[in-house]
């Protein structure tokens, strides 16, 4: 069959399909072609094979293969909904992912909390050490921020400032968590750096504050949101380590496949970390900084929050394998 006859034969069908594909979603449903797309796709595939076999012109083959591409996308695009079933995620997906990555979780927590604890201890015993981590002005800023003579925690506060700080914590802290995760793609080195670096930085302030005795201001301030914030940073680091680990130790997969599998597992950890950091930012802006709530309540709620966050994570990490 000559190309012209071939085109004449099929072009009504091609035009119908093109028309269908340019229609909006709503109109497509009413189009009578909508139920026949798989069959049409097969037809086009057949026609394309014929066109190639018969060496028809480049233009015809190109147009047919584009039609095939579009129909293929139409059929195989799958459902694109982001109905993150929230409760399902919190009680099923996230715990399962944590358990799946338990060794990386353990590594992330150790790499973050060990430097944190050691630096805190060191700075408590030898306060001068804080100056080797922070510049002097920064330390003076901490002094004045958390001085017990201050009636206001952190900075001057009204409700507007609370919202401002909420925005700042989201922008800053979640950004840090995302970077901690993403830089794990460099064979885990970036996550390693951010975990240890943040551990040192936070530990130093804590040790220093304990040493100069600002118990009534600093610790009630951080204990509430610290539970969600610090663990979320550790989780982000763990996700990054998993990503890097998949490149270094791909196991029985090719590296290409390993990094993709790791990424789709890690992203669930990151969704979790994201939610935790939102909670932390909210607590930090509206609860921790409040001057009307007594320190006893802050400590008790803070400890309660630590238990709520840590106990499930510990159980998940060390739970025996089912089956």
């Amino acid at each position, binding site marked *: 069959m000559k190309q012209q006859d071939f085109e004449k034969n099929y072009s009504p069908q091609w035009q119908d399909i093109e028309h269908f594909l340019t229609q909006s979603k709503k109109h497509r449903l009413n189009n009578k072609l909508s139920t026949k797309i798989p069959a049409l796709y097969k037809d086009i*595939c057949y026609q*394309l094979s014929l066109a190639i076999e018969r060496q028809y012109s480049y233009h015809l083959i190109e147009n047919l293969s584009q039609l095939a591409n579009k129909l293929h996308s139409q059929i195989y695009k799958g459902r694109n909904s982001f109905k993150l079933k929230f409760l399902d995620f919190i009680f099923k997906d996230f715990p399962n992912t944590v358990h799946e990555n338990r060794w990386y979780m353990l590594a992330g927590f150790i790499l973050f909390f060990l430097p944190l604890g050691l630096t805190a201890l060191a700075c408590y015993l030898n306060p001068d050490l804080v100056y080797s981590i922070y510049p002097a002005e920064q330390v003076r800023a901490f002094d004045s921020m958390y001085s017990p003579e201050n009636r206001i925690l952190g900075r001057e506060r009204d409700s507007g400032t609370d*919202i401002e700080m909420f925005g700042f914590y989201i922008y800053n802290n979640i950004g840090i968590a995302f970077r901690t995760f993403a830089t794990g*793609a460099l064979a885990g080195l970036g996550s390693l750096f951010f975990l240890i670096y943040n551990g040192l930085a936070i530990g130093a302030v804590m040790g220093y504050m304990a040493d100069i005795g600002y118990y009534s201001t600093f610790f009630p301030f951080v204990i509430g949101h610290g539970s969600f914030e610090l663990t979320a940073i550790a989780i982000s680091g763990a996700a990054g380590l998993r990503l890097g680990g998949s490149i270094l130790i791909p196991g029985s997969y090719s590296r290409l496949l390993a990094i993709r599998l*790791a990424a789709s597992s890690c992203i669930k950890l990151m969704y979790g970390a994201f939610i935790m950091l939102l909670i932390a930012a909210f607590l930090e802006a509206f609860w921790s900084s409040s001057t009307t709530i007594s320190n006893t309540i802050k400590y008790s709620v803070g400890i309660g929050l630590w238990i709520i966050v840590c106990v499930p994570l510990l159980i998940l990490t060390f739970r025996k394998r089912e089956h």
Partner: protein
Amino acid sequence: MLSLSKIDNAISVEVPEGIDLTAELAGPTVRALAYCIDITIRFAASLVIYLLLIWLGNVGHGVFLICLFAMEWFYPVFFEVLADGQTPGKKKFNLQVVNASLTPIHWEASIIRNLLRAVDFLPFANVIGLISMLTNKEFKRLGDYAAGTLVIYKKQLNQHSLPETKSQYLSEPLALAEQRAIVNFTYRHRQLSQARQLELAQITYGWHQHNSDNSVEYLHGVGLGLIGKR
């Protein structure tokens, strides 16, 4: 042919229906240009939001920071998922983000590839991303590896027209490759300049009696005859 396939930026994905879906990959230059446009749009949008919110004092500043966060991390995600794989910058250059199977991209893949921008950006100005793109055939940056995505050219259907001339029929058969060359030459009559068409037509002087005055027209006629135009 082998050397051609080594420098070609076309890829093909085999599907069960027995055909190869094909696409053309987008290289670093055009992607960088699209990125610049997106950055500019993002910057301009931030500025507008800032100017609108600055009147609200501290509250406005807080909301602005949240917007800034959302735009920094989720601006590409939003467009890639809801606008057919195209951020405004990509749309300008006809680029599209798709899965490796050439299917439309979803939330998860888009979020992964855009979170990993943070590492592709390092140490400055996307250097790691660029190095990554230059070291593999599919121009993947690290985010594309992790998400299993590709950036391709979104093609438009060819609107072709045929030259207005009389069909010619040859008495002697042509080889398939020759037929194809002439047919494609005929279809490209609008894309090629007159001078170039003449130049190409000269190659065929050996086997027909036509000269520079009408060889192009003659070849077009042969092409029309081959595709069966009456």
